[in-house]
């Protein structure tokens, strides 16, 4: 039995192999405690191997004092070695509790450790990567397809969607994102204004900083800044929510009730982001222009009224339309990326973490691709 009395003196733990009647005896002595100096299993096994023709191993624990897990863990290694070497082990000399514990530990045979599959090399590795990328692309298209079908059902009034969820998400992704969108877009406008002013001053065309900032912000940067903020803030949250739901079998519960999780969970998030991202982008445009005006006023000494008139002259409705369409597309990209990764999540905490990271990376990558495609498209249609 393990002794736990505090304040007592402990004797050092010892284990030695001695020749005895009909075989070898492992003599155990002293107090065996975790954290104290303990005899090493390796040395003991090496000694056992060095003894010639051992047929039988017995134990002597007359001088054994207190012991804890350190004793049976060593004995387990010794007994495993003996079994492998065909040495008979006689457990009679062990303390009763230790014998029971060892019997318990040996009751279920050791399962052979899993051998990891060899890592593919060279072409095989490249092939596996290509297959993985193709698989991921197929999953993305399948998911987008499901979302489109669900949208179709929504239009026909046959989708199951909780509008309360929709309004809640609208609030979360819209009003609650205003402070961060304000700060980031004001600062981006300010940086653009500052750099633009420095360059244009060399040509005596300082006033055109208003054109530069206004067009850049309204056509692209306002929407991009908003989308990237939303990818980090909202896309990650969508992935984490859906990932946790996947881990708790909540999504399975929806499926077994015959409710399509894409309709029930993805559609409200998608619609909320498509609705709110253009509004946020419009607000980001205003803040960006204000940032540019501030920089132009402080560094370039341009009168704010003059700056405003110049901006109104430079920026047309078509530029706003470009920015708003871009923002709606980016919103859809963020929602789809977050929801896709959330639905694909594994069922444990580590998987939910990986899902969140992957959602943000996927969203930003696809936002940049969408920005490039949209720029070409707008040019082609003459917007």
């Amino acid at each position, binding site marked *: 039995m393990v002794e736990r009395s505090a304040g007592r003196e402990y004797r050092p733990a010892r284990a030695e192999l001695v020749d005895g009647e009909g075989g070898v005896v492992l003599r155990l002595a002293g107090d065996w405690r*975790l954290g104290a100096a303990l005899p090493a299993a390796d040395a003991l096994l090496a000694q056992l191997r060095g003894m010639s023709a051992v047929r039988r191993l017995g134990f002597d624990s007359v001088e054994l004092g207190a012991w804890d897990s350190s004793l049976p863990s060593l004995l387990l*290694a010794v007994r495993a070695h003996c079994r492998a070497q065909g040495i008979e082990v006689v457990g009679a000399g062990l303390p009763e509790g230790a014998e029971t514990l060892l019997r318990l530990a040996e009751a279920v045979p050791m399962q052979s*450790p899993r051998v990891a599959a060899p890592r593919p090399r060279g072409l095989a590795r490249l092939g596996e990567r290509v297959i993985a990328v193709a698989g991921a692309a197929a999953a993305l298209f399948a998911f987008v397809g499901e979302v489109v079908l669900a949208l179709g059902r929504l239009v026909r009034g046959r989708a199951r969607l909780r509008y309360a969820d929709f309004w809640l998400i609208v609030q979360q992704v819209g009003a609650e994102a205003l402070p961060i969108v304000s700060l980031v877009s004001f600062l981006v406008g300010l940086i653009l204004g500052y750099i633009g002013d420095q360059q244009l001053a060399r040509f005596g065309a300082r006033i055109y900083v208003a054109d530069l900032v206004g067009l850049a912000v309204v056509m692209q940067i306002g929407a991009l800044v908003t989308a990237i903020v939303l990818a980090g803030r909202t896309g990650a949250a969508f992935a984490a929510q859906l990932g946790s739901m996947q881990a708790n079998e909540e999504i399975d519960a929806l499926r077994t009730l015959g409710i399509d999780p894409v309709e029930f969970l993805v559609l409200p998030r998608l619609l909320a982001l498509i609705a709110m991202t253009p509004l946020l982008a419009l607000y980001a445009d205003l803040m960006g222009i204000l940032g540019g005006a501030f920089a132009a006023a402080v560094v370039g000494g341009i009168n704010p009224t003059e700056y405003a008139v110049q901006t109104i002259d430079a920026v047309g409705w078509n530029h706003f339309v470009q920015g708003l369409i871009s923002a709606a597309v980016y919103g859809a990209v963020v929602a789809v990326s977050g929801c896709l990764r959330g639905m694909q999540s594994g069922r444990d*905490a580590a*998987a939910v973490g990986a899902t969140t990271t992957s959602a943000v990376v996927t969203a930003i990558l696809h936002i940049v691709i969408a920005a490039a495609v949209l720029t070409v498209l707008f040019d082609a249609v003459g917007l």
Partner: protein
Amino acid sequence: MSEAAQIRLERLSVGYGGRAVQRDLDLEIRRGDIFVIMGGSGCGKSTLMRAMTGLLAPLAGRILFDGESFWEASPAARARRIRRHGVMYQGGALWSSMTLEENVALPLQQYTDLGPRQVRELVDYKLALVGLGGCGALYPAEISGGMRKRAGVARAMALDPEVLFFDEPSAGLDPLSARLLDELIVELKHSLGATMVVITHDLASIFAIADEAVFLDAERGTMLTTGDPRWLREHADDARVRAFLRRGAA
């Protein structure tokens, strides 16, 4: 407090946000016993265990371990005391980003000066004790619910605790696995000499393992009786306790 009592609750009230789920609990748990906390769903069994394992401060009263008040001690003293306890959570609560081996090794690495080789031997031994020898390299997501529970037991035992808490050990297990886990708990009690506090409403488990039990009642919000459940089944004063232990039969 009697000599043999290792844990004692004195007029203990536990609950959330000032609302007591269980109150006026007075009981003693003897050293080396398997003590079962039983009662219907929602009666506050888990809340009581949270208070006993240091996760939730009681609303009133005291919990004494070896005569020392647990919640009145300094946080450092409480942390030292907690290291002498082991807790097995209902779902195992294994850390999902670590293998079973790493799960069991973490307490040993944090609180002992053992070298990597010794830690490895101890982990192998603890996993073998719960029938998971050779499974150390697996992640929690790769094993069944029953295996996760057993791995949870191995982790709870890592530091050779004096008191082991089990939250619903047989919940969600098939009868055979539940019986094996019960047997493991009884064997561990005999060989380790640790005190076991087990929360369960599984009658088969209660009769198989309990030396003594307390019945918590949701309606009255306090304990109705304590004693050997086999004796309580026939002789408990309160009809509710007899009905519970006879599965509703009068």
